């Protein structure tokens, strides 16, 4: 029997897709896959490849031969300091934001209703709507030696406490704005919403009846928190910590504006590319956060953080 062919190219196309579903799949998946592989993975691979080259000590030209020398340079004290400094900062920012975010997220998820809830959402989101740079510059002014925070602390007679804090070795400095404490505060402020939001979502999903069951079985509220709420909220906590940790790890603007000028990883990458032309070292530095985040995710998975997903 002769097949009656329908007319028009669109109809033919439709027939083709019906007869060969594989073609449809390729057409639909192809563009995003190409995007993912070429643009996304491709640039990462290019980066990775660069980091295995090295710079010639004498001419300053890049030697396009495989070597681990550039990675060896990361272990030099001045470079290793940068990695350690950035990681410690990211860890302390993450821990502090978890402690601050938990009560806020808990209240917003469990107690706030109606207008109050909207207010909480708005309060957390609002800082995200304004320019990042404006916020950081504003913090520079707030933390300055002759800034409003110093003025207020002086006003309540607590300047001895602040001076004591600033007199501490390493984290201290001449004023908040040129010390690690200042950098830490700004990081904490800027990334806090990224901790609150996933945590709040996770806490909202904790079933109320489990808390009631815990109560019925005679658990104190501290035990309920420890053995019921925290484990169930852990995926949110981990998600939030991935945000705060990786964002702090990669940021290069805050430590440039607030702090003691000691470099963080992002700044080191910025300094080594460009006029310096040391692309291999810049690439090797850029690989460091990837490795640290990989280790972090692996550890989190081992701890069962993703089991509840």
């Amino acid at each position, binding site marked *: 029997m002769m097949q009656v062919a329908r007319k028009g190219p669109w109809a033919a196309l439709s027939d083709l897709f019906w007869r060969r579903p594989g073609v449809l799949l390729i057409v639909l998946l192809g563009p995003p896959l190409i995007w993912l592989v070429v643009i996304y993975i491709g640039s990462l691979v290019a980066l990775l490849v660069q980091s295995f080259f090295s*710079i010639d000590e*004498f*001419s*300053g030209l890049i030697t*396009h031969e495989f070597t681990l020398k550039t990675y060896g*340079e990361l272990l*030099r*004290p*001045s*470079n290793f*300091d*940068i990695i350690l*400094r950035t990681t410690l900062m990211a860890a302390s920012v993450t821990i502090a934001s978890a402690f601050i975010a938990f009560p806020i997220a808990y209240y917003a998820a469990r107690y706030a209703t109606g207008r109050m809830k909207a207010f909480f959402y708005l309060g957390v989101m609002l800082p995200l709507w304004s320019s990042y740079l404006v916020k950081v510059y504003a913090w*520079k*002014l707030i933390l*300055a*030696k*002759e*800034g409003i925070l110093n003025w207020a602390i002086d006003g309540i007679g607590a300047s001895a406490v602040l001076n004591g804090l600033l007199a501490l070795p390493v984290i201290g*400095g*001449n*004023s908040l*704005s*040129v010390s690690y404490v200042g950098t830490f505060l700004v990081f904490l402020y800027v990334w806090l919403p990224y901790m609150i939001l996933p945590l709040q979502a996770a806490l909202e999903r904790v079933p109320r009846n489990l808390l009631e069951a815990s109560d019925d079985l005679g658990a104190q509220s501290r035990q309920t928190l420890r053995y019921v709420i925290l484990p169930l909220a852990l995926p949110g906590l981990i998600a939030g910590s991935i945000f705060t940790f990786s964002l702090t790890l990669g940021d290069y603007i805050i430590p*440039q*504006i607030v*702090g*003691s*000028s*000691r*470099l963080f990883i992002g700044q*080191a990458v910025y*300094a*080594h*590319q*460009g*006029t*310096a*032309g*040391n692309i291999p*070292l810049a690439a090797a530095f850029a690989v460091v956060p990837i490795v640290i985040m990989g280790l972090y995710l692996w550890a989190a998975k081992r701890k069962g953080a993703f089991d509840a997903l």
Partner: protein
Amino acid sequence: MTGRFLTTTAVCAVLAVQPALADMLTELGAGEGQVDIVAWPGYIERGETDAAFDWVTSFEQATGCMVNVKTANTSDEMVALMNEGGFDLVTASGDASLRLIAGGRVQPINIDLIPSWATVDDRLKGAPWHTVDGVHYGTPYQWGPNVLMYNTQAFGDTPPESWNVVFEEMTLPDGASNMGRVQAYDGAIHVADAANYLMYHNPDLGITSPYELNEAQYAAALDLLRVQRTLVNRYWHDAFIQMDDFKNEGVVASGSWPFQVNILQSEGQPIASVIPVEGATGWADTTMMHVNAAHPNCSYLWMEHSLASNLQSDLSVWFGSNPSVPAACTDGRGMQTAEGCTLNGLDDFDRIKFWTTPVSACESQGECVPYYRWVSDYIGVIGGR
């Protein structure tokens, strides 16, 4: 990968010989109706920021070449934009200009087509940052020193005479130590300022140019910078942050640009500047023309305009820089005056070591520490190593 690499190499090779193939313009034709310029922010003003500062409108009216400006914030950005192409001119600083010439991105200039070339400061006509083997690759635009900015309340009647206020611990005239009250530039090129200081105070090291240092000279400069680290709370990077630090952080002395000094003074702050006995480092910018410039006639007309019009004079007022045409200070073509030029450091030309990129093959002693090491070591110094 190999194929791509070969193609890239081939393209590079073609680009490298291109300047030799491309003949210089020998005769000006009619303007093409537009000219595209890569410039530092504030360098090309058409009266939109401040109506009094306009050196574009008159050019457009006279030549019919509409000026399009793309601002770039760093020399690296400028080089990247020129590599990309699509522009006619760039106002390149000493660190970018030689890279552009070496990379074959800019073309030689026929100075016979620029009638005002003769008015250019003789000391700039053959400057090594735009003249290679006797061939000119651009017209000098503006230059300026990196001055020592200080707070007049802290220093009273005795302005600092030496850069030692930012390099060594001392008691300032107001009775307090300079510890924590001075700043330094947050870029590896600051190593040159330390070398410049040593060149004056430690002649035994035999430094002849702060941009050409052998291992021993370089190590001495780094040692000096390590002392400086103990005095500096925060290195400056952004001109506006530095101004804020002078106002709100109690900073009283730092290497700086006349730009910051002028703005702080206009705000009534107790600020002044000086070029100390050791001399200073400085920058000098050049208008260079892209090797494939689409609008060569307008480009030449602009280069002529940049030297002949009110541009040199008014820009030096606007930016706190110095004209590359000395007559612009005095002949009333713009707002600049002889006093203004003196204030911006015109008379100190010979005491300024102009910015060039340190390379390993250097003129004075054969083998020098290249710039990429300046970068990694300066990072170490700032990090306390």
